[in-house]
């Protein structure tokens, strides 16, 4: 599928209507992350960059008895043979519950949702820039693109274990415990200095995305950003996932989560990140 035309509908595979059950196959620790795999015989194969709304069938509303109440959004990290893979980090009640699921447990899933990445044009080569859990959608995209270098930033060595999920990686960590000490944007700066005939595909925390956006804008490098923001529904129903663009607010679940960096004045989305 390399070189797919940038038509919107090529970037969106429609989802079956309504949530459906999906059996958990396994749930493996990868450093600081969990790789959650489930069956999805009824679903179409997603486009890279699309996401799913996930909830556990059992005990979604458990624990302290309050949250999680709504489903949570997760980028698909890989999809093959009617199986979906998600990468997640336990950062709150929803991800905590998903992180403890075991084979035999069930998920509610709705998806694929949103609009994914488009291939580079004009002979540019892809460059993936990921921060932390943001590596997830880059993995499936790198697969489909059949290559391209990945620059990945992590907090520390434990998180950097996630880098094994991509190929051709360069790593930076905040504490220098793996790869170069520093930020992934330091790697990006070097890379673009030596070769800027690139299209950048980035996913990560808001501050990282904003640095990538600004750097690419300065160098006139095209960039697509897979963004995150709190979502209640994931399919355009609640208008809760508004992101400010040059053209006004858009619903990230419907017109994203992948946005062209040129649409944004800033990628510093309020309320996102940890």
């Amino acid at each position, binding site marked *: 599928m390399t070189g797919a035309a940038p038509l919107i509908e090529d970037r969106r595979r429609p989802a079956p209507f309504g949530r459906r059950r999906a059996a958990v196959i396994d749930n493996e620790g990868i450093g600081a992350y969990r790789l959650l795999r489930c069956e999805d015989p009824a679903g179409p194969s997603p486009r890279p960059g699309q996401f799913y709304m996930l909830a556990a069938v059992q005990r979604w509303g458990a624990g302290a008895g309050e949250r999680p109440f709504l489903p949570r959004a997760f980028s698909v990290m890989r999809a093959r043979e009617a199986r979906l893979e998600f990468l997640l980090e336990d950062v709150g009640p929803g991800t905590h519950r998903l992180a403890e699921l075991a084979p035999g447990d069930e998920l509610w899933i709705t998806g694929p949702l949103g609009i994914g990445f488009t291939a580079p044009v004009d002979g540019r080569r892809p460059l993936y820039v990921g921060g932390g859990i943001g590596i997830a959608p880059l993995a499936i995209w790198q697969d489909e693109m059949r290559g391209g270098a990945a620059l990945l930033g992590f907090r520390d060595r434990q998180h950097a274990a996630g880098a094994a999920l991509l190929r051709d990686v360069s790593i930076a960590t905040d504490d220098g415990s793996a790869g170069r000490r520093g930020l992934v944007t330091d790697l990006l700066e070097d890379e673009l200095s030596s070769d800027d005939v690139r299209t950048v595909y980035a996913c990560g925390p808001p501050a990282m995305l904003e640095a990538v956006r600004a750097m690419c804008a300065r160098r006139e490098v095209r960039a697509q950003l897979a963004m995150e923001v709190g979502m209640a529904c994931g*399919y355009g129903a*609640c208008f809760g996932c508004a992101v400010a663009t040059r053209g006004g607010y858009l619903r990230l679940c419907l017109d994203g989560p992948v946005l062209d960096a040129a649409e944004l004045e800033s990628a510093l989305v309020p309320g996102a990140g940890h």
Partner: protein
Amino acid sequence: MIEFCGLSLAHPIVNASGTFDAIAARRCFGDEVLERFPFAAFVSKTVTVAPREGNPPPRLWETAAGLINSIGLPNKGLEGFLIEDLPRLAELPVPLIVNVMGFTPDEVASLVQEIGVRGEVAALELNVSCPNVESGLIMGSDAGETGALVARVRPLTTKPLIVKLTPNATDVGTVAAAAEAAGADGLSLINTVRGMALNPRSATPWLGGVTGGVSGPAIRAVAVAQVAEVAARVSVPIVGMGGVETGRDALDLLRAGASVVGIGTQSFRDPAAGTRVARELAQLRSVGPDRIAAGA
């Protein structure tokens, strides 16, 4: 088939305004949405005269058994609605109810007139949960203001007029009675309950709009109380909503006095929730009351 304000509905479950965008859902799910449309009528998100961007984000906060939203009624405005949305909503397999809100009685009048005249539109829902630009108070919390507004716009359309009440009022029953007296054909309630959350990091309000509205199971008991209160005061039919999750919850609102039940927040957890609730409701109604209790 049930009859509601002159509309024929296949079952008593509709969506709550602003919680299901049929056009967006079709983009996400394709035409399966039309084939398996979960609601017996479709209620649009609130339309205002001028286009609105909506409130600054964040707009959502998850709370105990519920959600606080501060969306701020983003919409394309009257003209955008008529030109862009109405033709697509007309393709839905169910009657269309258009929800409108104005910041002045004149605005409401033009919304009712221009939307009411369209053949695609089966009924209008008047959202009166908006602040009066002069007094700052919510129109719908005052019986006098609500009655005057309904009386003013009632003659402007032949379509059924449903007035959507706010729960943030001292005396919802009196507001409801005033709306009925002024010519409302139906009432719908409850809208969201005013609530707020703080950012755990900064201790400032989390929501860009500062306060928001609570929806979901947390407000269900409030909905049952207000529907019962209003049903005791009026004889026009009622769309009951607030925290409905299951057929049993829908049945409770019907028993409290509603004729039709709206599903809001629950659709966020499952886009097809309306279908499930309608099915569960039909099952409950096909068994005797004792079996209902046992199966609860």
